């Protein structure tokens, strides 16, 4: 009977399915990842832009003459990574401004200078063997190593540096800000490049003390100008319109780095192959496949089954599971990524004095009126249960700095961290004129993690009598409103683009910049100190100013750090040489199996 066989099949299928459902509880529900895929570590201070006038080259032997396919291929094998690649929208260094790009670019392009994971204090040579910086920080001269070749075989020359950086500036895409303040890039000879900063309105060259740190950013990696031009690239002033190389650079790399990108399938994978021409020698892996996997538990399953050798990050909830597997190694690393709470500094009447339009646009003006009082802001900072938030959001994998500059940056002293103090908070509340508490609106861009933070903040503040009405906004709406200086109180995250303290002091300290601008933080002392940090060349004076600006911030309390993230990295135990970098994750050249 035909029908009976079909029936039997159905019964088997159904039985299988029901038994499947019975063992359901072990399945891990979808959990939001703590943060960006590129995660890494940093417990020491970042590089200071001290110009080591002449640094000797690490490997400066005679240039190996690379002919034909190299005699000895890479040790071989494929390295498979499971990462969240959701943020990748382009891989052209002229346009790419996302976190994952930094990781891809540092492994496919060479920067002139570098900050290595094991010493974040020192800027070391990469394509540049040595460099000079004038005392005013307005002229930077780089001497390129002469043995470096692009993967294409073309030599790396000063012209390539000029092309790469001009292309970046003229395309004016996301990474162009790394070259803000740069006026002129010129090739003095085949292997010497000179960068001069841009003059201000009086014709005085602007000091750019963070330039060396910013030149370590993978986006400033050197592109093979011949190759990029062949594919329609240009560094002309109108490159934003006339450069046609993006389509090719999205699928290929044109660098001298240890690997060459050969394919990018959006939201699926990125494939790299070893650059056999690499000036440090051939990498240990012939091929690297970076697979896009979003679900954290699935990522771990892939690692456990050996379908992935390494993950970009491991969800804290899965830590126990990973530790139970002897084939997996985990490592907890402090990042420089942090979340902050920002409170408006200027009171509505002063806003009105500056701009009627801004005044009319303020959201929750009553909240502005309350929060703009210094004692109130201090009360809020003392009322927050920071440890509780770290526990709730990060399962404890987090830390906190005294102000909003993360631990690990120069001048940041963990001993100065102020925790929760309810008595002090209540006293300050009374001082602000609200002994019985107050009601305010708290804005944020909604996400599962931020909802938890918001709820926790709400209940913490309630303990001192502050009623916080939660105002979640869709993330892009939130950003728009915040940029328009409308919000009285908001919280969000901050990730550095380069390892220099101006990454925080500029954006939080200068009243006309970014977060400080958005929260009306127009404080002269903070502005002056941030300006000093920007322009001082003496490291000791700089550090002193960093210490001081944090004191100002902690007194005025326009921002308080909620938590600094720690990331868990997981990889197969066979994998050697794994070291984290807080900006670009990991150097694949260092890895071996």
């Amino acid at each position, binding site marked *: 009977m035909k*029908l009976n066989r079909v*029936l039997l099949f*159905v*019964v088997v*299928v*159904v039985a299988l*399915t029901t038994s*499947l*459902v019975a*063992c*359901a509880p*072990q*399945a*891990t*529900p*979808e959990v939001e990842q703590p943060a960006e895929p590129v995660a890494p570590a940093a417990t020491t201070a970042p590089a200071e832009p001290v110009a080591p006038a002449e640094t000797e080259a690490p490997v400066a032997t005679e240039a190996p003459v690379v002919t034909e396919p190299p005699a000895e291929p890479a040790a071989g094998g*494929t390295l*498979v990574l499971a990462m969240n690649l*959701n943020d990748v*929208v*382009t891989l052209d260094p002229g346009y790419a*401004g996302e976190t994952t790009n930094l990781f891809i670019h540092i492994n496919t392009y060479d920067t002139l200078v570098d900050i290595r994971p094991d010493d974040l204090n020192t800027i070391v040579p990469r394509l540049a063997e040595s460099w000079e910086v004038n005392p005013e920080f307005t002229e930077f001269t780089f001497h390129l190593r002469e043995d470096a070749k692009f993967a294409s075989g073309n030599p790396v020359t000063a012209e390539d540096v000029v092309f790469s950086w001009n292309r970046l500036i003229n395309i*004016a895409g*996301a990474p*162009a*800000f790394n070259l*803000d303040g740069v006026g002129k890039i010129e090739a003095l000879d085949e292997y010497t490049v000179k960068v001069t900063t841009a003059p201000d309105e009086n014709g005085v060259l602007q000091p750019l003390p963070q330039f060396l740190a910013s030149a370590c950013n993978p986006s400033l990696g050197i592109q093979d100008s011949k190759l990029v031009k062949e594919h329609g690239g240009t560094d002309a002033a109108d490159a934003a319109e006339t450069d046609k190389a*993006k389509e090719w650079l999205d699928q290929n790399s044109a660098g001298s780095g240890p690997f060459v990108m050969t*394919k990018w*399938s*959006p*939201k*699926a*994978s990125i494939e790299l192959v070893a650059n056999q021409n690499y000036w440090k020698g051939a990498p240990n892996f012939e091929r690297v*496949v970076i*697979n*896009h*996997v*979003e*679900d954290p*538990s*699935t990522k771990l*399953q*892939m690692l*456990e*089954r050996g*379908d*992935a050798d390494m993950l970009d990050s491991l969800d804290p909830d899965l830590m126990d599971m990973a530790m139970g597997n002897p084939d997996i190694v985990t490592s907890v690393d402090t990042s420089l990524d942090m979340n902050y709470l920002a409170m408006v500094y200027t009171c509505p009447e002063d806003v009105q004095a500056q701009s009627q339009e801004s005044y009319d646009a303020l959201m929750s003006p009553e909240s502005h009126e309350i929060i703009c009082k210094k004692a109130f802001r201090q009360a809020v900072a003392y009322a927050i249960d920071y440890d509780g938030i770290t526990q709730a959001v990060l399962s404890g994998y987090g830390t906190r700095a005294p102000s909003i500059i993360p631990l690990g940056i120069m001048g940041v002293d963990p001993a100065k961290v102020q925790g929760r103090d309810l008595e002090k908070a209540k006293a300050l509340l009374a001082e602000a004129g609200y002994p019985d508490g107050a009601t305010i609106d708290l804005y944020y861009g909604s996400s599962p993690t931020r909802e938890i933070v918001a709820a926790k903040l709400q209940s913490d503040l309630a303990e001192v009598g502050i009623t916080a009405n939660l105002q979640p906004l*869709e*993330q*892009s*709406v939130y*950003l*728009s409103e915040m*940029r*328009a200086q409308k919000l009285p109180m908001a919280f969000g995250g901050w990730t550095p683009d380069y390892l220099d303290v101006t990454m925080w002091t500029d954006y939080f300290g200068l009243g*006309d*910049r*970014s977060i400080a*601008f958005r929260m009306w933080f127009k404080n002269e002392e903070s502005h002056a100190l941030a300006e000093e940090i920007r322009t001082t060349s003496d490291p000791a004076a700089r550090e002193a100013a960093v210490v001081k600006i944090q004191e100002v911030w902690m007194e005025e309390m326009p921002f308080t750090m909620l938590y600094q993230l720690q990331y868990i990295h997981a990889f197969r135990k066979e994998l050697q040489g794994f070291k984290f970098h807080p900006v670009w994750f990991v150097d694949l050249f260092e890895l071996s199996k």
Partner: protein
Amino acid sequence: MSLIQHIIRRLVLMIPMLMGITLLLFIVTHIVPVDPLAVILTEKSMEDPEAVAAATAKWGLDKPLPEQYLIYLNNLVRGDMGTSFKTKNPVFKDLKTFLPATIELAIGSFIFAILLGLPLGIISAVHSGRPVDHFTRVFSLLGASMPPFWSGLLVLFVFYYLLGWAPGPGRIDARIDSPDQVTGLFLVDSLITGNTEAFWSSLSHLILPCIILGWFTLALIARISRSSIMEVMTQDYIRTARAKGQIERLVITRHALRNGLIPLVTLMGLAFAGLMSGAIMTETIFAWPGIGRYAVDASANLDYPAISGVTLLIAVIYMFVNLFVDILYTFLDPRIRES
């Protein structure tokens, strides 16, 4: 009216419908109080008035809304869906990148749903009230009620992680070279290029996501076909067929099925269009680079051109599927042909 005339009329009617959709879409995306510059520019370049002015002019954001709409329509007619704010690629190119994965997944799920759903529906109709019917009901209910983000994780956990019977997420094994791009459909491309290793790998990677995505459709098909056939089985012509001594199998396949399946055609059409418009959760769990993920990103970033592109694409898919279903009707039901 001949069939050809009918089709042409329907195609012409699509133009005003598309106009209506674009207008609605345009209004909805533009009344949201968000500054699109926030998407186009980076955090840092937002502070550069020159960059802001350049971007505003480049993307036509300084023009009044009706003018922006006309520009958009004008471009659309010429096949230009605009450039995505986020990816900086022509939207058409982005859609071409993400659509093949969705097509493969949708067709696979659809085949799975029909191959299993239809027999299940028929068997449970014929044996209604018997154990097999109850099993089908439970099985369908599970498919209809388990959200894919849960059932997807579950099948991965059991069949990939615990048992190792199925491959993990993704379209193809990481250690295998994906086939050279011709159509973007891995199965087709690997066959064309004779890459059998890639063919089997992509086929095996399709199984779990297709089961998960197709399960819901399967449930619909099984339930609707069951009730539809049961209804038909009470009709006079079935009794007549039995009375004239037709064996039961032929009664079902020849008389009951043909009539009972007509309502299913509409359902399947809609279900297929639904599968084609992307399955966000399934795509997320199985790391499947399809149109659903692109749509989510577009809306999260308020990327007008991309949102419009995806919506238009889905609208067009629905229109064509409906047209196809209508045409299919005329073959299945002579009464429609006659009228």
